[in-house]
């Protein structure tokens, strides 16, 4: 039975795109309880002065584990130091070496994480950090000469948990799990949502919907929320968009960013979702602008293909996080020399005498932000 979901907030929440990716699908997550990590970094590399004041490599690893632990309840990393290394002991070993199980890593490899599985049960894995690399422990922008062990270990321990690279799955998101290390030095929302999807917390979350423009349509849920209007973490809920007469549905926005009248949400957080409709005579967005990843100083171009009536004039305006971009009044937007302040969501508003239409927002990620 479908049920009308109450329409709550009209104010858009901070926008995010759920796009985490997993090493494999079901079967490779850890069972509930502890994930024991044998930290052998200090035993396999001499200590040195680290830029963040840490006294040892193991301390860097402990902090990376604690960062993940703060987002976990179903499982928790525990750390210890034992000289008894080996396979088949159920311990995940973290150590410096130039090879993995006798196979040289190669000179371009910073670290790898392995995962051993018997049947569908995950048994152990190792994180091997290349000892030929110059390491430090930093914050903020990545260094030119030394690699930051802390953020590489945060990333590797994400692999230990079962997360993969979202950008390898063609998803443009801010995430420490992206395959490219950036100025981002800790977990981003997408990383947290990913790990909650694998290890759902004992919690329930609210999904709030708003209709843009008000009165242009409604949303139906295929499963009802609990008595408090919430859904249990980890549940999959399907929603359908239904336009009113003389309106058509464009896209799902806010914390979701999808086209198509059917939306399936994996519940991992409170979400504010917008349903974007437009009147039947308004321009139609035929090709949506695409998400892009950039570095400071790049020139980036967004474009949308719009069809509209030739009998009346059409007007265009690009928006950046909801604000008009000056002099951006055609279907292509060129951003020369982008910087961190250019990051965010870009959308084209196309209007004529019959109404207005917004393109699906496209995210620009600059230097990982």
């Amino acid at each position: 039975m479908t049920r009308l979901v109450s329409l709550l907030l009209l104010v858009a929440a901070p926008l995010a795109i759920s796009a985490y990716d997993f090493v494999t699908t079901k079967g490779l997550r850890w069972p509930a309880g502890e994930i024991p990590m044998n930290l052998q970094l200090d035993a396999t590399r001499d200590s040195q002065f680290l830029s963040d004041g840490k006294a040892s490599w193991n301390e860097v690893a402990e902090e990376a584990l604690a960062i993940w632990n703060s987002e976990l309840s179903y499982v928790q990393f525990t750390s210890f130091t034992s000289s008894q290394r080996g396979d088949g002991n159920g311990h995940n070993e973290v150590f410096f070496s130039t090879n993995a199980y006798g196979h040289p890593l190669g000179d371009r490899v910073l670290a790898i994480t392995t995962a051993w599985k018997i049947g569908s049960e995950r048994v152990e894995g190792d994180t091997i950090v290349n000892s030929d690399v110059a390491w430090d422990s930093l914050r903020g922008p990545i260094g030119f000469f030394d690699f930051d062990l802390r953020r590489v270990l945060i990333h590797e321990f994400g692999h230990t948990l079962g997360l993969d690279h979202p950008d390898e799955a063609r998803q443009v998101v801010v995430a420490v799990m992206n395959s490219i290390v950036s100025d981002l030095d800790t977990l981003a929302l997408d990383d947290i949502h990913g790990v909650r999807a694998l290890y759902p917390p004992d919690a329930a979350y609210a999904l709030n919907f708003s209709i843009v423009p008000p009165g242009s349509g409604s949303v139906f849920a295929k499963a009802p929320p609990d008595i408090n209007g919430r859904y249990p973490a980890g549940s999959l809920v399907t929603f359908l968009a239904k336009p009113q007469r003389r309106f058509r549905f464009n896209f799902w926005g806010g914390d979701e960013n999808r086209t198509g009248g059917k939306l399936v949400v994996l519940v991992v957080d409170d979400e504010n979702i917008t349903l974007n409709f437009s009147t039947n005579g308004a321009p139609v967005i035929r090709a949506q602008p695409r998400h892009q990843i950039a570095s400071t100083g790049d020139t980036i171009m967004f474009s949308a293909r719009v069809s509209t009536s030739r009998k009346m004039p059409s007007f265009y305006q690009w928006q950046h996080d909801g604000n008009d971009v000056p002099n951006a009044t055609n279907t292509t937007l060129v951003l020369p020399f982008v910087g961190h302040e250019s990051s965010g969501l870009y959308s084209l508003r196309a209007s004529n005498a019959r109404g207005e239409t917004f393109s699906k927002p496209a995210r620009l990620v600059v230097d990982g932000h």
Partner: protein
Amino acid sequence: MICQTISRRWIYFCLIVFFTLSAGRGFGATVIAPSFDQLVESADLIFTGQTRSQRSEWRNIGGQKSIVTLVSFRVSAVHKGRADSVVTLQFLGGAVGDVTLDVSDMPKFRKGERVVLFVQKNGANASPLIGFYHGKFSLQSDATGRETVWKHDGEAVMDVLEIGRSKPTARSARVPLSNEEFTGKVREHLSRSRE
């Protein structure tokens, strides 16, 4: 006057160093992404081929047990180095019976997939491809039958200068490189280095 010249030279030097370092700042979380030039120069074998078969088996190196996967390719063109009509590459990881070893960033192949591969130290290194999946380029035919070149992240290669960078430059209205154009760039680079 001399001081000014030295000062300008020093500034130019600093600018060159800065831009060289800036261009290479993006690096893979586990692998430093190689540029196109680095791929071509470091490879001891570059070939176009098609995956034919793969099998996994146990290895024991100095008492350390692991699983490796041997992937065989039917070679259609060799661009650098020497190769027989079939090349078999060894990758750390795979599944034997009930036991699976997954390795982060290791490239994966579909049967029948056409690829251009940049190979270094096959049989020794954990990955025989330079920079793990960065050394693999997939070929896909479009509706006209034109074979275009794609990176591991599902992005088409528009310009070899973008390889190894953290992102492409403005990409609209550009055409992916064809297999012939891409491998032509490899041969062009090799003949330049021989001169």
